[in-house]
């Protein structure tokens, strides 16, 4: 015999379920830096990405259940490519994509028994830092427009707090990366993160055409070992020779 469950209770149960699922995973940090937007994930896998390219100026980062956010990512790539092909490349925007994701997640949350256990960021790098757009989407389809920095995933609150203490506007890449990594270490007092266990990518507004680029392990460890306050001239030189965006 079915029991009556009030809608409030039903929604609350679903939300708790989704939150618990997300809290089990490791965290991802997104922050603005001097040349664009930096994404850092505590993710030792080289093949299962939490951070990906969607379009010329747009990237995607997610935490939670892999098959669920991967499904959303693949759909997002299709959405972007179809719109870019039928209209123009400039007509693909993070705002449009965030709306589509919000609708999807909202529908799934209210209409199915099992909500998606995911949290997403859709970010678009602009011509200048003021024009950068960072949208954060939660499992129930809520959208928040973020500025500066954000953390999501397991211990997101602790990481956010650590970020808040360290973050500054317009940091050079090496420094922004250090801030992100130190903040991710706040997940757990014992945690020490090395380049090997990090997934790092940027949307660099000074690149051409496709602005998304993954930073290889060697590059990440070089950046992390740079002396704080050292000249950032080195970055520019190294940036030239890293091969294709997906390398």
């Amino acid at each position, binding site marked *: 015999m079915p029991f009556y469950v009030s809608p409030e209770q039903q929604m609350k149960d679903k939300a708790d379920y989704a939150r618990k699922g997300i809290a089990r995973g490791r965290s991802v940090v997104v922050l603005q830096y001097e040349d664009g937007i930096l994404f850092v994930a505590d993710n030792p896998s080289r093949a299962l990405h939490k951070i990906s390219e969607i379009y010329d100026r747009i990237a995607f980062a997610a935490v939670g259940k892999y098959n669920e956010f991967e499904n959303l990512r693949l759909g997002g790539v*299709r959405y972007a490519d179809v719109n870019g092909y039928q209209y123009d490349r400039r007509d693909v925007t993070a705002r449009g994509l965030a709306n589509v994701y919000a609708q999807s997640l909202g529908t799934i949350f209210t209409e199915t028994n099992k909500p998606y256990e995911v949290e997403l960021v859709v970010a678009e790098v602009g011509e200048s830092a003021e024009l950068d757009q960072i949208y954060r989407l939660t499992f129930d389809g809520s959208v928040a427009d973020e500025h500066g920095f954000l953390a999501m995933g397991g211990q997101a609150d602790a990481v956010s707090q650590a970020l808040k203490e360290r973050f500054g506007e317009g940091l050079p890449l090496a420094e922004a990366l250090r801030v992100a990594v130190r903040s991710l270490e706040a997940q757990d007092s014992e945690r020490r993160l090395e380049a090997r266990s990090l997934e790092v990518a940027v949307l660099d507004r000074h690149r051409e055409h496709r602005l998304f680029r993954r930073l290889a392990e060697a590059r990440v460890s070089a950046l992390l070992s740079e002396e704080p306050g050292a000249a950032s001239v080195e970055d520019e030189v190294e940036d030239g020779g890293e091969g294709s965006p997906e390398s």
Partner: protein
Amino acid sequence: MASQDALGGRLPGLFGSPDTSSFTEFLGAYAPDALPGRRVLPQGAVGVEEIPHATTIVAVTFPGGVVMAGDRRATAGHVIAQRDIEKVFRADEFSAIAIAGTAGIGLELMRLFQVELEHYEKREGRTLSIEGKANRLASMVRGNLGMAMQGLAVVPLFAGYDEVEDRGRIFSYDPAGGRYEEREFHTIGSGSPFARGSLKKLFRADLSAEDAALVCVQALYDAADDDSATGGPDLTRGIFPVVASVTADGYRRLGEDEVGALARSVVEGRYEAPGGPTAPLR
């Protein structure tokens, strides 16, 4: 548009289905009319020769890469439809595509191919092998067969850098989707018989990248010399061929100044010898 389903939410159902990483296949299911080959031409369509046609393309390999070049003329019947059309494009980081035949369909095919490669790369997290790219293009050309039979044929030329074998490779196509790998050099379009003769005499296995570009510009000059649909270098307006090279460093379109200098030197040379450089007789 496809109906919404529970899992896809507001993304129409097809967006969520994981079945293919091919953009063309997806678009064919989602918006069939958006594919160039799917349109139905009215019976007894006349006047197709009045639709702009793109003409001559040449490609030349050299150790470590390949150079591709195209003239700038589009013709509609006996009229020059455009004198600065571009027919050589970046396909992805390590390949280039050029088109000859019906310009409108060719440009659409080229754009579709660019998205096809990028789409695959983003979804799968790896790039297609050069053969994989060439095969995808073949099936896209094949999709246009119906239009080709009615006079709207388009034929691409595909060239890329093979990272595994460290060399440039060229693939040509026929309107039925046949794919042929070419050795050393190739040319397509209305001026190709003349460009081919020129390439045959000028090609050497040990060309440098600069010399390969020069060979291309010479061959295009020879094509323009004898084919009315191919445009030569336009010194008065500063319109020169589009020349692009693909090497281990990726795709690079040569700057206007570089091509301008090459084209001027070719034209200068022709004042002395209108037939161009001669090959040794023995």
